[in-house]
């Protein structure tokens, strides 16, 4: 079973870092902004079945939140990435979520507040997210740097994709 998942979020929130951590278990402090799309692949085992996740790591576009529709098409689910040290990235993520839902309808997604390893410059707290939790959003606090919540982020989404398919 193959599933397409898009990584969405503002620029430099750590989409590429999360994918790289998940796929190759590596992390780099250097920042190279993504141009266009990179596709990565990871095979997960969900309830005894192999699922191949095709991870579409899209570039972050803060300004207009113009995510190309064609990239999104065919996605089974998506991940919204927020940079915990920058409050405005949450708004970007919320905007993106609305865009996607408008294009693809309601498909499974999860949100991660990244960079949890640098709590001292933290701008986003739990309270800000409680409203979203209320709406039934799946929200993680994690870090591409330490690997915190990375596995569970992807595997939770994968489980939800399959349940829905079943």
């Amino acid at each position, binding site marked *: 079973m193959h599933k397409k998942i898009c990584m969405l979020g503002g620029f430099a929130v750590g989409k590429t870092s999360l994918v790289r951590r998940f796929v190759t278990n590596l992390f780099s402090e250097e920042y190279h902004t993504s141009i266009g799309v990179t*596709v990565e*692949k990871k095979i997960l085992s969900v309830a005894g079945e192999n699922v191949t996740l095709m991870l*579409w790591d899209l570039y972050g576009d803060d300004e207009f939140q113009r995510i*190309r529709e064609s990239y999104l098409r065919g996605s089974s689910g998506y991940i919204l990435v927020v940079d915990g040290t920058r409050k405005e990235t949450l708004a970007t993520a919320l905007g993106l979520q609305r865009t996607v839902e408008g294009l693809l309808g309601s498909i499974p997604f999860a949100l991660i507040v990244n960079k949890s390893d640098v709590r001292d410059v933290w701008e986003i707290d739990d309270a800000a997210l409680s409203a979203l939790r209320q709406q039934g959003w799946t929200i993680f606090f994690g870090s591409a740097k330490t690997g915190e919540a990375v596995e569970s982020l992807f595997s939770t989404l994968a489980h939800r994709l399959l349940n829905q398919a079943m």
Partner: protein
Amino acid sequence: MVEPSSKNMPNLTTDMSEDLSELRNLLLAPEQTQLDRLQERLDDPVLRTHEVSRLLPGALTLQKDDPVLTAVLTPHVEQAFFTSLRRSPQAIVDAIAPIMGPAIRQAIRQALQSLTQSLNQTIEHSFSLKGFRWRIEAWTTGRPFAETVLLHTLRYRVEQAFLIHRDTGLLLQHVATETAIVRDQEMVSGMLTAIRNFVHDSFGGQRERDLSSFQVGEFTVWIQQGTNAILAVVIRGTAPETFHDVLQDTLDRIHLTQADALVSFNGDASSFASTQPNLEACLQSQYEAPAQKPSPVLVAIGLLLLLGLLLWGWGSYRDGQRWDTLVDRLKSEPGLVLTTAQDHGGRYDLAGLRDPLATDPTSLIAASGLQADRIHSTWSPYYAMDPQFILSRARALLQPPDTVTLILEGEILVASGTAQEDWAHEARRMAPFVPGVLRYEDKKVQTVSMAHLIESIEHVTIQFASNSSAIDPVEAGKIPALISVLRDLDNLAARSHQQVTVECRGSVDAAGSELTNRILRKTRAQAVCSALGESGVGSATTLTTESASIRRPENQATTRSVGFAVTVHPSGSAKAGHP
């Protein structure tokens, strides 16, 4: 009569029940028979089997779309098939052979084609300078030489084909050549889609501006767009534009056969396994200049054929020469008359006449160098009229002794010399029957008899000098003639199965003592005897000296000489005395 009713009561009842049953019979008899017949039909298994067998085909036809029936029958059919297969495999083989045969032939043909191609390329480049460079390259890259050659002579080769779901960018099916380097086809598929999307978005949404090909190093990627799927192929080299049509056809066919699966695709690509043959058909390739240069294998075969033709040509030219020589030889050969000599392209017919005394034509044919089994010859016997043949024939028939010479003067056979009376007589009788001889003449034949010969032998004396037993040269001159006569005599005796004893008798003159004279007689006889016997006189002749019992002198010559006494007696019998 008064109480008929009371009296008749019981009767009435019986009567009524009888009536009832009669009534019932009347009313229900047809139904009863029907019932009985039905009962019978239900109870009789043979009858029921018959009925069911009549209904079965109809029933099965009605239920032909029912999965339950199929499910029920399948194990039985399978079982029956396996049993039948085990019992008579030949029947199954016969049944499927017509299907399997062409399939197998097809597979073999394809395998042979690709073998010939790689063989061709390899042979073609094995010995050239370029070939040498490539050999080094193969050695350094670790690629097989044949593969290196193929890469260099490649016009184009489609190494991979991706069938990609258009919306998700997920891979539906992927095929690659054995030699292709396949990384991660799923990621490639995703990236291809991403790139395509990127181009699509960046350069406007019209379809004709979609990405349809791009270059990556030595590879070109061609992308064929469909409504729900994308066909992407990785090409090494430069494919012709017409290859786009192939891709479009393939994509159309896939869209047609997989329409539902493409629309409802949810990430499970297993149902697209059936598109593999379609994609494999796209893995085409073309190599350098196969049209201008004929296949080396063909050239080799051609050369072999040419060589064969030359050999054959030279062989048939040589055979032609040999044939002419043979015909000339046969024509010139005395005693052979060639009537037919035909060359039917390597097969020869010979016919003619042959004198029994002529050289055997088969030996001439054998000597010609032509294969004897390619020559069919028939020879009819005839008598040649050449003088030499007539003579040979006459000699063979008449068997003249050495002393007789036969010559031919025109058609007259002339004999001369000496011969025995018997022979002369027989020859006179036989000679006219010799083919080619018109007349026989033997005036010059002196006939001899044994008596004549004996007389002439006994007429001879060898003279000796006084008191000598050595044959002097003058006397020795008589010896060869004597031997010749002795031989003739021997010859005649042998022919008539007789034996000859020639006694050499020494004589002395009156002088000398009795003893010396006796010795002298003996030694003179021995001298002559051994002179005659030295070169042989024939197997039927015994030479002997005077026997020990000395003849009395009164009968003896009183000359210094040796004389001869000849006796003839039948073979095996004791010597008869001289008459």
